[in-house]
């Protein structure tokens, strides 16, 4: 009975357990629990396990600070709002350029040959390193920050859209030709549905990169934003606030990934593996 109910949520239990162990270990480091515990055995050497709050905030302190910033002073909301705005606009631009461009480049063989080296180069470029150039071209205002996010997000979206079309089973293209489908119909009924899983996988990768874009873009002279907040808190040794900022981004990333996963399950009812995947 007990064993059965354990097995039913084994995945959740083990995941939560590992997380709890991690948090307790962390809390212990920040509060000196482990140092006190091992003092009799190790002597003063145990003090390396006691980390001062300026270097490491404890999870409980972070939680308390997060509560303060979100619900008491509410000071994080303007930061969060602006960062979210940058992210959404950046994503919309990256998707509306990257998806059509990738699909079209994948569809036409000659265009694909032309674009492939550029894609490979773009993929190998650390986009963050382009930041000084972006500042040079566009300054440090909102457009520049959005541009850096677009630059980061567009890469996996482009590459995946391109690959999606290149890997379509030729038998479906033959089928469409046999039924005299027009190019537009072929695109809509074969290419697009076959590409959707790739597109969503690309979006999922892009989300993580977009988060990097937020932080990196805001380091250069913005006044508001989660990235700014982290940066400012860091340079004034407010470690707890740094962690609250990081936590905010982590949670946002998780939530967005989950949203994409739900969309995947929605649109891929025809795919046996994902509908069975819990």
């Amino acid at each position: 009975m007990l064993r059965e109910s354990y097995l039913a949520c084994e995945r959740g239990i083990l995941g939560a357990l590992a997380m709890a162990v991690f948090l307790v270990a962390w809390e212990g480091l920040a509060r000196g629990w482990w140092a006190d515990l091992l003092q009799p055995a190790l002597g003063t050497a145990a003090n390396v396990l006691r980390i001062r709050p300026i270097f490491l905030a404890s999870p409980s302190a972070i939680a308390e600070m997060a509560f303060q910033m979100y619900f008491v002073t509410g000071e994080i909301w303007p930061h969060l709002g602006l960062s979210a705005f940058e992210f959404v606009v950046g994503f919309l631009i990256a998707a509306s350029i990257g998806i059509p461009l990738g699909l079209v480049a994948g569809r036409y063989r000659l265009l694909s040959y032309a674009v492939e080296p550029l894609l490979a180069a773009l993929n190998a470029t650390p986009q963050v390193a382009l930041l000084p150039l972006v500042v040079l071209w566009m300054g440090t205002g909102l457009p520049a920050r959005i541009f850096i996010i677009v630059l980061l997000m567009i890469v996996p979206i482009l590459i995946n859209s391109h690959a999606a079309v290149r890997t379509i089973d030729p038998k479906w293209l033959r089928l469409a030709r046999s039924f005299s489908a027009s190019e537009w119909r072929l695109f809509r009924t074969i290419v697009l549905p076959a590409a959707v899983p790739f597109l969503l996988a690309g979006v999922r990768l892009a989300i993580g990169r977009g988060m990097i874009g937020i932080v990196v873009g805001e380091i250069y002279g913005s006044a508001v934003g989660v990235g700014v907040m982290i940066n400012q808190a860091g340079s004034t040794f407010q470690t707890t606030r740094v962690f609250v900022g990081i936590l905010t981004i982590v949670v946002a990333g998780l939530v967005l990934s989950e949203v994409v996963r739900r969309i995947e399950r929605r649109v891929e009812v025809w795919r046996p593996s994902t509908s069975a995947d819990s």
Partner: protein
Amino acid sequence: MTIKLEAHRIGLEYGDPESDGRLVALNDVSLSIHENEFVSIVGPSGCGKTTFLSIVDGLIRATAGQILLGGTPVSEPGPDRAVVFQDSSLLPWRTVLGNVVFGLECIGVRPSEARERAAHYIEMVGLRGFENRYSYQLSGGMQQRVNLARALVMDPQILLMDEPFAALDAQTRELMQEELLNIWQASGKTVLFITHQIDEAIFLSDRVIVFSARPGRVKESVDIELDRPRSLKLKRDPRFHAYEDRIWSLIQEEEKPRAKAAG
């Protein structure tokens, strides 16, 4: 009887990157199929029978000769021909209904009319009630029924079937053969059927055309004079076995020199 399909001295050659020469896939293939006739092509593997079907469909252009359908030359795919493809050619992101209306959508039939026509053929192939299933929810036999309905709904002048039962297990295959005959009789279509199974060809056809090994040519055309309607019992009839022996030895004549060359 009027001639529905005529292939006149069809040839297909293409450059062979391996030998740096020309590869002749089909050579001087001439055959004709009458209205309402069921004709199968069998032949050793690699003899170009599927390629020939693609030429009739218009997916591949012959380098010599001409295909005439109802007297008009064929150069590209059109709604006057419909193919039942080999296994699992259903669009997995479409339901049964969505797959069956696919061809109608392509030629611009209104959705409501397309659905109506599809419903008729879905019923004909015995899949009523499965309209909203996806292909992964169907057995192999059911998938090929959808495949058949998708071609029939186009109401083509000729139905081109490319080894449609090759991937099915033996029992399902036999049942599908019997059912195909029933559907064929009800629809009165002209059928060109490609298979590598001799018994399947004899059981279904009015005429079995044996292709030679590459380059594919018409080696012989065998009229199957067995009464219709046919049932699976026919496969145990001595006359059936006589046809099997005859066609088998025709194919063996083609396979033997190759086996020697390979051995």
